[in-house]
């Protein structure tokens, strides 16, 4: 709770820094705030601000909060202010507010917290998506995201109301108890409500067939916002899904498996095939994220079937790290315009650091050994095989097709002649951060147990 408070106050203060002429002030203020929040998490400061029925510090909450904060920190550090007249203080503060929502979601113990978290996470995002005010695509993205997101929120609220109506409580444990007492004989309203809730979260995760907003929004938003959406927000919505399936509705395994399986399969297919025909890098990555999040969702389903939560946590960790790398590099390449594949031509000659970093990020997304992506994918695949052979084949096939577009990206970087001016890294801090991220991905691929056990030891001690 204290973490949220610190982030919130930092966000508020950051918002007012636009009065000062100092351009980097909001950035450093934001970084200080995040570091303070991390410190508070590390020291486990509570200050008596605990409301267990509202917000609980599960071990998962603690782990994921740290990961979310580190991701946010890296986003702040890597941020390149390419438009001088742009109001960055607002962007930073809105990202901080949105992160408050994500952390609220990570510790939810209550359907109301869920709703609050989703809204606090999403509303700043609508503004962020539209924050390039002089570009029509950005405004379109914001509007589209806002309207569809509002629908999703309405569905969520409707679903919560129905679940409350049948179980008489918002609290996670009470809902589970109500399901146990009824012995599976809950009225149909409960199931309808439950499907509405899950569908609205699927919308936030951008899984097919709820994915239509994601390529437009990814493409239209400023890249820093896209980075934020693929990393922090994806963690928030995925963990929410985990709480829904494992927390609130843990007795409905058969139903939700039947319900989610087609969604996962369609996402595998669409994510792989639609990505193949894109020339716009951000749209391509939006489609790739659909199939990756389908893997995450599979991991969540498996975490119940196999009693092993590390599957999806690890997948989420590697996916967010590699997409952080990829999007940060793209942020550095673009000049405020859309990034097409052509813009990547000959990057390796111009800026080897960016090229190698991007390549390793992309290889990790593709699931090539020695990157974290392979281990993550391999573990989920092994899990899927035990559940359903056909889904396993589909997942493998989707990875195989997806390699096609990742390869197109890599070919552009390494083998094409330069066609336009690229930006080289000048800032040493950026180079160091990029290197650390790349090394992390490789270590996740070579010594995953080192990192996993480190995490467990640190948080479960």
């Amino acid at each position, binding site marked *: 709770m204290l973490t949220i408070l610190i982030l919130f106050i930092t966000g508020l203060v950051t918002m007012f820094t636009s009065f000062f002429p100092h351009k980097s002030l909001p950035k450093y203020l934001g970084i200080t705030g995040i570091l303070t929040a991390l410190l508070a998490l590390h020291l486990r400061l509570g200050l008596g601000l605990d409301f267990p029925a509202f917000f609980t510090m599960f071990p998962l909450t603690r782990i994921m909060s740290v990961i979310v904060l580190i991701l946010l920190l890296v986003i702040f550090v890597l941020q390149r202010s390419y438009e001088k007249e742009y109001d960055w203080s607002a962007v930073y503060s809105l990202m901080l507010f949105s992160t408050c929502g994500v952390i609220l979601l990570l510790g939810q113990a209550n359907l109301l917290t869920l709703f609050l978290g989703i809204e606090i996470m999403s509303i700043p995002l609508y503004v962020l998506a539209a924050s390039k005010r002089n570009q029509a695509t950005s405004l379109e993205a914001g509007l589209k995201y806002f309207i569809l997101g509002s629908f999703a929120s309405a569905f969520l609220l409707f679903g919560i109301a129905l679940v409350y109506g049948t179980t008489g409580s918002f609290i996670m444990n009470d809902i589970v108890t109500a399901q146990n007492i009824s012995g599976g004989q809950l009225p149909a309203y409960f199931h309808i409500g439950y499907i509405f809730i899950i569908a609205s979260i699927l919308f936030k995760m951008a899984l097919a067939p709820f994915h239509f907003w994601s390529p437009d929004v990814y493409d239209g938003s400023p890249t820093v916002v896209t980075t934020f959406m693929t990393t922090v927000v994806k963690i928030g919505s995925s963990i929410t899904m985990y709480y829904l399936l494992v927390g609130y509705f843990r007795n409905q395994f058969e139903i939700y498996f039947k319900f989610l399986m087609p969604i996962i399969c369609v996402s595998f297919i669409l994510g792989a095939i639609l990505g193949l025909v894109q020339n716009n890098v951000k749209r391509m990555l939006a489609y790739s994220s659909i199939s990756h999040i389908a893997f995450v969702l599979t991991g969540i389903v498996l975490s119940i079937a196999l009693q092993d939560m590390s599957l999806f946590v690890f997948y989420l960790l590697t996916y967010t790290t590699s997409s952080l790398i990829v999007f940060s590099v793209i942020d550095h390449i673009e000049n405020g315009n859309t990034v097409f594949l052509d813009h990547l031509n000959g990057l390796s000659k111009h800026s080897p650091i960016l090229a190698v970093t991007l390549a390793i990020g992309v290889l990790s997304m593709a699931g090539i050994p020695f990157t974290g992506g392979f*281990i993550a994918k391999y573990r989920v695949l092994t899990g899927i095989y035990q559940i359903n052979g056909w889904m396993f084949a589909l997942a493998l096939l989707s990875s195989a097709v997806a390699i096609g577009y990742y390869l197109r990206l890599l070919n552009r970087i390494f083998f094409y002649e330069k066609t336009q001016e690229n930006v080289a890294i000048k800032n040493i801090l950026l180079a160091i951060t990029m290197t650390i991220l790349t090394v992390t991905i490789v270590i996740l691929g070579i010594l995953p147990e080192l990192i996993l056990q480190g995490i467990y030891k640190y948080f479960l001690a």
Partner: protein
Amino acid sequence: MHLILLLPLLVALTAFFLPKKLVREFSLAFSGAFFLFSIYVLTQYNPMNHYNFTYFHEAFLVGTGGSLHIGLDSLGVLMFVLTNFVVLYANIMAWNKSYSSSFYGCTFLMQFALVGVFASLNAILFYFFWELALLPIYYIVYKWGNGKDLSKTFIRFFVYTFVGSLFILAAFILFAVETKSGSFEITEMAKTSLTGNTQILYTIFLVIGFGVKIPIFPLHSWQANTYRKAPAEGTILLSGIMLKMGLFGLLRWLIPFQEEVLPLMQKLILVLAIVGTLYGAILALRRNDLKLIAAFSSLSHVGLIVAGIFTFKFLGFQGSGIQMLVHGINIVGIFYIIDIIERSTGTRYLTELGGISSKAPIFSTLAFIIILGSIAVPLTNGFPGEFLLLMSVFFYNPILGALAGVTVILGATYMLRMFQRAFMGEVSESVSDFKPVSKTDLIALGFIALLVIVLGIYPQAVLDLTANSSQYMTNLLELKNN
């Protein structure tokens, strides 16, 4: 990590960052040293200690639980030597071509991955290196390749091999889940066994996965164009050692886990392999591009090795062992010859060549020796392997054996046709200003020619080395079938 893996990795990482002036000497020195080191490992290898691997020690932790081992058995040791040999030759061939540092970095990275493939005693570790080997070679062939539609050719190559790899991954996951063995260590895996449909699936998956890389007949369509458009160094890495990964994979990861020999599968694969053998040879007969002839001859030779392996006989295993080594040596020699011709005349098309022997007699003699080796004339190194393989196929089924025997004739035809058109006859226009072949090239080729003769006269050294390993596999299969 043991030295055999650690050193190439370190050298690779160093080579990437060295300035262009130094990297050539640095790489040649280190690849030469590695080759000598591999010979040392070979001499230290105890031939009594076969299919029981010589363990080095714990290598990695790859999130699969437990520690992963690396080690070499007798076949692995042979392939390890061959890897170092091919990488050395790639460096020698690159000497005059002013490649950038990343080329040398990639060759050593390739060596790292290949040694990893041959030394892994754990399925996941094996897969790990198998995939890793794909990246540097892809970089080399694409970056320094030439010809039209590079992007199309190499994306096809990559996608083919990557999909093949996924089949391998699928097979290993299948094995682990079906046998409920948590471990991927080969010694643990050997204790369990697959049955019925699972075994059929496992076999099919692995044959497809390895078959893409070898390539086995219907999966070969990436091969010819990739070989043709790749730079010479890339081609020798691909043909000399990468296709051995597939053959090695069959011997290491498929044969010992055959619970029972499935006669139908066996016959199907044998027929496909022999069709590939004949098909490759026939295609090679009428090609004009020297590289394509070599590529198709490779397809033909490798088909015979696969056929030999799938007879599941002692002779077949023995023949495949020696032939894997010898094919590696000879194909490197042939692509080296083609590279020299191309450098000296600017063309590699038979119609534009002729009369090289009058311009460069020593080079032509050496080339002739290597070509004889590739034809498998007795007393050259190609003979013992081919003989054992043919004999093994013949014992399995005389008709198939006879068909396979036809390739020997076809092989002599296309190879001699190549020699005749390029080296004999009138001196053609492009050959008339044939640049003299450098001493380095002659020495390097001479070493291959020496190997052709030495291994032709005394193949027993190699056969002794692999004998116990082959015997082990034969006994294993007989045991399981009875």
